[in-house]
């Protein structure tokens, strides 16, 4: 526990010093909320909808930080620490190298939660955002999305042969997911063909779950999403643990 605490403090400081996560996980979602709020205001999401456009987008914006941390931050830090042999240094101490990975997961979880709170406050204070559904369902879905995205990140970081490849794969996952899953560009405004493509991405499914939770829509329509996200989470975690390379 002593080691976890010391590592947590120092790794959090290092991460904040890096600034990337502060920009992509903390600032960017807030900016997206402000833009969506300013452009669409409190207009209903569509003719006759009893919720606003922003309310419809809330779930999506809340996942920006998860996406940044899970498929960008985590894989890069894991492959960086492996190639710098920092993980190896931990192998010759009484603690396991996995401790430093656990610390990273906790840090990215923290970024996601802080981002969620800030996104909510911004939307509620500036744009009169109303949460129609159940917070319990929302948080359940939120952590599920987090688990699946983080497991993808650990998988990429754990088996990519070097930082360059990890970075390339991370970008390949990050940008399409961020743009097409509805996290920045609203899913509703995309043409049908693009929606079909977006549907295969786990983040799209996660956002559907979150949206249903925010707007209090029936959960049956998103049964497929639950299955898909859980499946991806489980498969990636198992593969990541099984094929993880410390060195």
């Amino acid at each position, binding site marked *: 526990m002593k080691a976890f605490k010391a*590592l947590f403090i120092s790794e959090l400081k290092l991460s904040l010093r890096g600034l990337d996560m502060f920009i992509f996980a903390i600032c960017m979602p807030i900016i997206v909320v402000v833009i969506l709020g300013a452009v669409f205001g409190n207009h209903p999401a569509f003719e006759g909808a009893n919720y606003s456009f922003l309310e419809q987008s809330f779930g999506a914006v809340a996942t920006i930080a998860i996406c940044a941390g899970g498929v960008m931050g985590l894989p890069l830090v894991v492959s960086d620490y492996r190639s710098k*042999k920092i993980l190896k240094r931990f192998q010759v101490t009484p603690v396991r190298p996995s401790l430093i990975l656990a610390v990273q997961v906790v840090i990215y979880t923290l970024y996601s939660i802080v981002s969620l709170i800030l996104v909510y406050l911004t939307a509620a204070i500036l744009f009169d955002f109303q949460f129609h559904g159940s917070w319990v369902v929302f948080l359940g879905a939120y952590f599920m999305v987090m688990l699946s995205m983080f497991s993808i990140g650990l998988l990429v970081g754990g088996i990519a042969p070097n930082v360059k490849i990890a970075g390339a794969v991370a970008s390949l996952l990050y940008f399409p997911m961020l743009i097409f899953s509805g996290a920045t560009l609203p899913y509703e405004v995309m043409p049908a063909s693009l929606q079909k493509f977006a549907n295969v991405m786990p983040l799209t499914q996660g956002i559907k779950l979150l949206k249903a939770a925010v707007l209090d829509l029936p959960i049956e329509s998103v049964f497929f999403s639950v299955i898909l996200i859980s499946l991806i989470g489980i498969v990636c975690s198992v593969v990541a643990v099984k094929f993880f390379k410390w060195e």
Partner: protein
Amino acid sequence: MEKTIEVNKLCKSYANVRVLDEVSFQISRGEVFGLLGANGAGKSTTIECILGTKKQDSGFVAVLGMNPQKERKKLFERVGVQFQEGNYQERISVDELCKVSNSLYKNPLDYLELLKQFGLMEKQKSLVSELSGGQRQRLFIVLSLIPNPEVVFLDELTTGLDPRARREVWKILLKLKEQGLTIFLTSHYMDEVEALCDKIMILKKGKTIFYGSVKEAISSSPFNQLEDAYLWYTKEEEEYESV
């Protein structure tokens, strides 16, 4: 005498190339052991097999009577390691690196005291990446001593140090040796080996070509300097003919 490190018939190959061929030695408590040889002779692989970060193909290794792979957690409470390349996070400060190392052990030494001893006190707040080569090297020796170890592994411990700093490090190591610390080191500096080591082993392409004291190394060669003797022992066959 108590055996601190025991290595018996250690063998290791990478992709069918033998990098260690039946290497055997024993190190007693309080001894300073020097592993010598050209780059690629198998020194780092030997250290890694002893530490359990690599698995040998065959042979036996025990450190403080423990199997380094099976009793990792217990063993590394009592063993300090300085790897050849310092491995640290970008943008981490000296103080943070020490604090984290400190938190990994049950009974660590006061790292401030160690920083003072190694002349790094005023660098406490600096980033590790901003230290000079010598300062960084000293910092990594400090890190290896934080667990208050019974055995310490120092891979090329004084590479990059200026002569005065090297002498300082020797002095500290000799003092620690008097207190019973067992030291396993690799070095390319023969003056250092002569000043510190009780026993040495010279490796060449994974084979032991000399194992004994510094004095024996010199007396069984045609030379009277360790450096000459070392070069004589490690000479390539082709070179040998042309002399």
